[in-house]
């Protein structure tokens, strides 16, 4: 058992857990553990971003079209919200470090609000995509097309491709120009972009939800005075590390998903 002078805090539990020798060792372990965890998270997102990169190199046109069909306005607002929440959680560390209970609660609550509004906007965006029918899937339909000799034929394409064509043509002139240059095969394959879009943003949303849950938990702890011994500011600190990471992932996702232009060698000539 640790026999530090201040091992028994004002809370119910001792500040230094039984298996640590002193508070410094505990704080260092907690920080280190979170950094190692974030390394695994980098690899986790790295795997899917690697697959994204490979597919985008093969199919630049499809990725451009898919990206154009998304709603960058909501995503820009969300970027602003998430960056602000990174700022507020940093103020929360400062408040915890200085032992300001009210400040800690205020900044934790602000972070939670900003994160929740982010999720609300994200849900609205998903719903918009759903209404536009931009959901990949095996459903097929028939469209009018011409074959190589110019003869009119009926062609089986995915429902997604028809929806994509419709969305792009009614968006703006640039989107229509992109859509007009695409074949039905390419429209079909744009589903691949949307698979990445939903899976990466979905993973990001899951990380946000976990983070918000932890933030609520910390807010409750702050309410009951768990962070009164200021040594425990380290828990707010590692929470903020995680939150910054989730923020940082979004900083990567925003350009990769919403600004995917046509960068390929055959487009350059």
């Amino acid at each position, binding site marked *: 058992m640790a026999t530090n002078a201040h091992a028994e805090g004002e809370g119910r539990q001792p500040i230094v857990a039984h298996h640590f020798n002193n508070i410094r060792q505990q704080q260092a372990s907690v920080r280190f553990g979170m950094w190692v965890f974030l390394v*695994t998270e980098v690899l986790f997102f790295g*795997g*899917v971003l690697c697959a994204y990169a490979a597919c985008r190199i093969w*199919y630049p046109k499809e990725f451009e079209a898919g990206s154009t069909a998304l709603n960058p306005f909501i995503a820009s607002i969300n970027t602003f919200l998430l960056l602000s929440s990174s700022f507020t959680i940093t103020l929360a560390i400062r408040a915890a470090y200085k032992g300001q209970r009210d400040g800690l609660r205020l900044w934790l609550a602000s972070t939670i609000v900003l994160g929740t509004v982010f999720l609300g906007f994200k849900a609205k965006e998903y719903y918009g995509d759903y209404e536009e029918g931009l959901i*990949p899937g*095996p459903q097929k339909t028939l469209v009018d097309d011409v074959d190589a000799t110019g003869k009119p034929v009926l062609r089986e394409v995915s429902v997604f491709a028809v929806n994509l064509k419709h969305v792009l043509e009614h968006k703006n002139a640039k989107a229509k120009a992109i859509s007009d240059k695409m074949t039905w095969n390419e429209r079909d394959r744009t*589903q691949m972009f949307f*698979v990445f879009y939903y899976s990466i943003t979905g993973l990001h949303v899951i990380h946000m939800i976990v983070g918000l849950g932890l933030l609520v938990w910390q807010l409750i702890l702050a309410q009951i005075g768990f962070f009164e011994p200021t040594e425990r500011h380290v828990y707010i600190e590692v929470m903020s590390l995680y939150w910054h990471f989730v923020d940082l992932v979004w900083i990567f996702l925003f350009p990769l998903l919403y600004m995917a232009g046509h960068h390929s060698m055959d487009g350059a000539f």
Partner: protein
Amino acid sequence: MATTHAPATTPTTLELDYTPQTAPPVVDVDGPPKVHYLNHSFGWLSWLLTVDHKRIGILYLIPLTIFFMCGGIAAGLVRLNLIQPYGAILELDQYNKAFTAHGTIMLFLFLIPVIPGVLGNFFVPMMIGAKDMAFPKLNLASWYVWMGGAMFFIAALLFGGLDTGWTFYPPYSSKYSHTNVIWAGLGVFITGFSSILTGLNIIATVHKMRAPGMTWGRLPLFVWAMYATSVIQILATPVLAMAVCLLATERIFGVGIFDPSLGGDPLLFQHLFWYYSHPAVYIMILPGMGVINEVITCFSRKNIFGYKAVAWSSVGIAVVGFLVWGHHMFLSGQGVYLGMVFSVLTMLVAIPSAVKVFNWTATFYGGQITFEAPMLFTIGFIVLFTIGGLTGLFLGILGTDIHLHDTYFVIAHFHFTMVGGMMFAWQAGLHFYWPKMTGKMYSDFWSRLAAVIMLVGFSLTFLPQFVAGYHGLPRRYPYYPVEFQMMNILSTAGATIQGFGYLMPAVYLPLSLFFGRNAGANPWRATGLEWQTPSPPTMHNFEELPIVTHGPYEYALPSKFTLEDGHAHETKGGNGGH
């Protein structure tokens, strides 16, 4: 008891006699402690809610043994079926499910978690002089995650099965297989998280929890190996999780990421899969190599030859292991130049592996070798692992791999490293540390016999497969030409002997709990910190914070026990060495 040397009163007047000793005597000076980690509290909940790293180690041990038996039974079915050229007992789809069950259970539910889960949890904190892991609750959570994933996986295998092989290659797995690919994939995904959390915990523990004086240069080599393993676990496992996620997405939504008919690329999956799964074979073997260091020094009564080389070779294997995954795809349509690069990089892994083998053999040289069961397993390990490693070179070379790819040669190579290597190392570790974990000593005769039987059975199983594979017998096929029947019968006979060998520890180790004599604190008279505690260890491992003043294998120095209890040993003051 011979009293050839009067116990000295102070170390300054002690005249050290460096006459080498032979068998280390087993002396129980104090008897087991009254209250230790096994009996300080009772009841199911005291185990299921424990955060004690030692109890969590035991929690891993029991299901792991059961999973090993499940995987073994599946292997037995496969071997039995291959007695006849057109299959002896199984339908074709049953055969596919049997070899998939064998591969997946053994890899994901046994080989990957076994040593990190049991010996890593139990001994890494003790070896570095800590009271527990850095994050004890996370440690328990990681066990629950692992059990949850394993249950998922077993359920998927029992209700419907899986027939993709352990590699889950699309488009077969994403489009054509009618078995539980998604559920099994979810099981792999979940157990992967447990693997990550265990690795994270061990890395944080090694960095932050070392006792005063326990510098990196004084860490036992088992800890170095576990550290390297953990680095691979946290860097590689997330990528597998991602690959399985994408596979499930493709299967559920019917969209192409890997399926070529939908615009995807199966090679992409293979890249993501092997980016994890090749380093994963080092997750499996490195902890085993760590155990070997501990056993070999103890039963040679010598310091390890080239401590730094062995320590850094673990790290080297971890690093280079990340750069060689492409050698699984020489014939999958990967570019020829990429294949050449991967071939050369694959050769590089042989260097740190060979450093280890040479240093182990050099440790034998001039040592006072005794042949207790752990040492027999260790010698088996070195021989079999060397054969496995050298035949791996055949497969790493681009030209020969074209001939040997997907034949029984690959199977034999892989089993020589994984069973001959890891399984023997696991047995060595289990037998070496059993007295410390339980406080009881198992039967010397039966344990040595088990080691010999396993070695004989193993060799008979897999040596013929090298020949069969060289002559072109492909892996995974249920039917084969009749001229291969003799090889297959030899293999199956060997598998039967092996099965008996594995059953023996399952009998005499539990029996030792009831009938074994008390082992005493340090039955092998080893020098590590973990042996300076009573057996079984007390709740917090150490009565007081240990201060470390020397390296882990100072068998040439008089140990603490020699100085204090010199009369208790049949020694002449020193304990071996020059």
